[in-house]
């Protein structure tokens, strides 16, 4: 029973992180129709920013804020400088470009920070929660993980549904030309979309790293599962990303604990295939395909 609960809770925590990562991918997909494979190393490098600050003796929270802020800047700069020229071009160009960025950021991080493992602190306890002599794997940090991702999701919903800037971002994502006619500075919205996505990606990087080890490749598996989660939910649907992430996190945790650790990746493939065979554009795709 305890094993069951532990497996479920670790899966849930991991699923929240996948969800955040998938959400970052969805934000970028919606605004620029690009799958950003460089999201993982971008998050990795902002986590290193936090690590440098923490290692310099400053508080975790300063590092945390700095990582999110540098994510914001990094996302905006990358969109402006590198991505802008391929927007609206064939999708494969953008895919190769983000793969190229993936490799470059990776190599740069390895050169600057070395390729060794470093430990990354957590702001809250890493000990499980005790109830009646039974320890549940719900640590303070896990609670923080779940809450912060939930808060980010609520903030995003509020931003998109209830603010003018959110409305402009959505409009730009759906129809750039009409948005321009209505006075929306579309390019600025795209930059903002990338910047916000990079912040959410950075958050997922910090949460994966918290109380664990980081190295330049520590986010690599997250990009796969995060992307699978986004595809599961439907790339256009932020809600789908969250559901996809949770579904994947919990099921993979059970596969790892009860079937075999080496079948985790296979299980993710199986889940994806089953879902896509039933719904080829993800669980939460709109009934109407917007292909013209």
């Amino acid at each position, binding site marked *: 029973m*305890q*094993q069951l609960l*532990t*497996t479920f809770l*670790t899966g849930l925590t*991991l699923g929240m992180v996948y969800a955040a990562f998938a959400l970052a991918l969805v934000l970028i997909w919606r605004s620029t129709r690009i799958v950003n494979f460089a999201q993982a190393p971008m998050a990795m490098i902002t986590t290193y920013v936090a690590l440098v600050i*923490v290692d310099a003796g400053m508080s975790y929270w300063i590092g945390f804020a700095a990582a999110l802020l540098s994510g914001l800047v990094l996302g905006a700069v990358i969109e402006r400088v590198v991505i802008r020229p391929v927007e609206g071009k064939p999708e494969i160009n953008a895919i190769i470009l983000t793969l190229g960025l993936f490799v470059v950021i990776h190599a740069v991080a*390895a050169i600057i920070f070395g*390729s*060794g*493992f*470093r*430990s*990354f*602190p*957590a702001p*809250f*306890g*890493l*000990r*499980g929660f*005790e109830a009646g002599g039974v*320890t549940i*794997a719900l*640590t303070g940090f896990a609670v923080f993980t779940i809450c912060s991702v939930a808060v980010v999701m609520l903030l995003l919903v509020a931003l998109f549904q209830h603010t003018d800037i959110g409305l402009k971002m959505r409009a730009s994502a759906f129809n750039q030309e009409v948005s321009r006619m209505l006075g929306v500075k579309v390019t600025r919205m795209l930059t903002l979309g990338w910047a916000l996505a990079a912040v959410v990606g950075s958050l997922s990087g910090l949460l994966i790293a918290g*109380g*664990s*080890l980081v*190295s330049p*490749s*520590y986010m*690599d*598996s997250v990009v796969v599962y995060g992307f699978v989660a986004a595809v599961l939910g439907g790339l256009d649907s932020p809600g789908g990303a969250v559901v996809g992430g949770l579904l994947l996190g919990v099921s993979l*945790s*059970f596969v*790892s*604990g*009860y079937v*075999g*650790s*080496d079948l*985790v990746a296979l299980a993710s493939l199986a889940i994806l295939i089953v879902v896509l065979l039933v719904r080829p554009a993800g669980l939460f795709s709109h009934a109407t395909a917007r292909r013209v």
Partner: protein
Amino acid sequence: MKRWTKQMTRIAGLITVGALVAACGAGGRPSSGSSSDTAAAEVGITKDTVTVGATFPLTGVAAPGYSEIPTGAQAYFDYVNANGGVNGRKIKYIVRDDGYNPTTTSEVTNELVLKDQVFAMLGALGTPTHSAVVDFLNSEKVPDLFVSSGSIQWGNDPKAKPYTFGWQPDYEIEGKIIGQWVAKNMPDAKVGLFLQDDDLGVDSEKGVRRYIDKQIVKVAKYTSGNTDVAPQIAALKASGADLVLGFNVPAYTALSQLVAMKLNYKPKWFYANIGSDPELIGSLLSKFSEGAVGKVNPLDGVLTTEYIPGVDATDNAWVQLWQKVWDKHGKDGHLTNYRIYGMSEAYAFVQALQAAGKNPTRKGIVDAVEKMGNDAGPPLAPFRYSADSHLGISGMRVVQLKGLVADPLTPVLVTDLGAAPIKEDDSAAKDGPPASGIPEVKPAG
């Protein structure tokens, strides 16, 4: 479409260009291939140099830790070269990155053997990676010395792989020694195994089961690369295991400790040597939570084994030598157990090269290593090298970590594969290094 049907002729053009490029780079065919039967100088040996090659993961997931090994070896070779080299020859040490991908290992080993024309390979790391090239090296008759991996396949069949030698104690004898120690000292423990799902796990489990088959209540395997080990540790906890034997790499020692903390799971831990570098694990875990871990070493009290003196043994003559070498020739960073590992392999290579005589040949060094057996060197236990076995160091001792220091619980225990008995043998442990820090081995035979 036109361009598709024209392709074939264009391809011809490309190949020509490729040939030109290749020809420029290759500088013509080497005159003496590996099959040289002339009396001329041996491949990789000149009047004043000996070239050796190595493949290590310098990038990618396996790079952390392992990429330090060649820096140690390099420092020791620099030390030897600064003191005149071996028989007047400087050792040129070429390291190539394989990213722990056997495909790349194969490519860079080709490069080392065919282009750089190394005399021998030294300390190439990894089981799957080195499996890819072991047949090639043997068919090219390149001495393949001291593979950095505990798989038994490097040494258990010298007929099939006459040029390949293991170095560290193989995982099976480590499993045996740990198993016997548990059977003797903790006969009532309920044992859980935490295994890496490859030859490390398989060979060690085989060794352990020889002694405590009935005590094992649970086997949990993780796949290298999947850092979420909570399901495995939860399964061990659920089984009620109160002693966990971990045959895993260092990162997973840290991860298993972290997850155990989350689950409030406090069994006795016994990590195999490969995963127990206390300094590395300590630094990995130093930042975690509640201050408690920061002050007390999380591995305090953990059991493990050792087969060469580690960086903690500051009063050991070997470690003092390594420290001296590193201070003088090391690059960035400080002396670590990985670097000591690299230096110890480099030391063994210098021994072998000396034993191969003034004009070493590939065949000659192989014969010399087969006779190296009990020669003095840093390992605590003798090598098992002979014409019938190319397995490396024959044993180790069980230690308990107190802070960052390893406290021996047993004398050095030596054994061999299969049913070979475990015996005490402290003979090699007492050897100190020569005053010069450079071995003085007489040519063999």
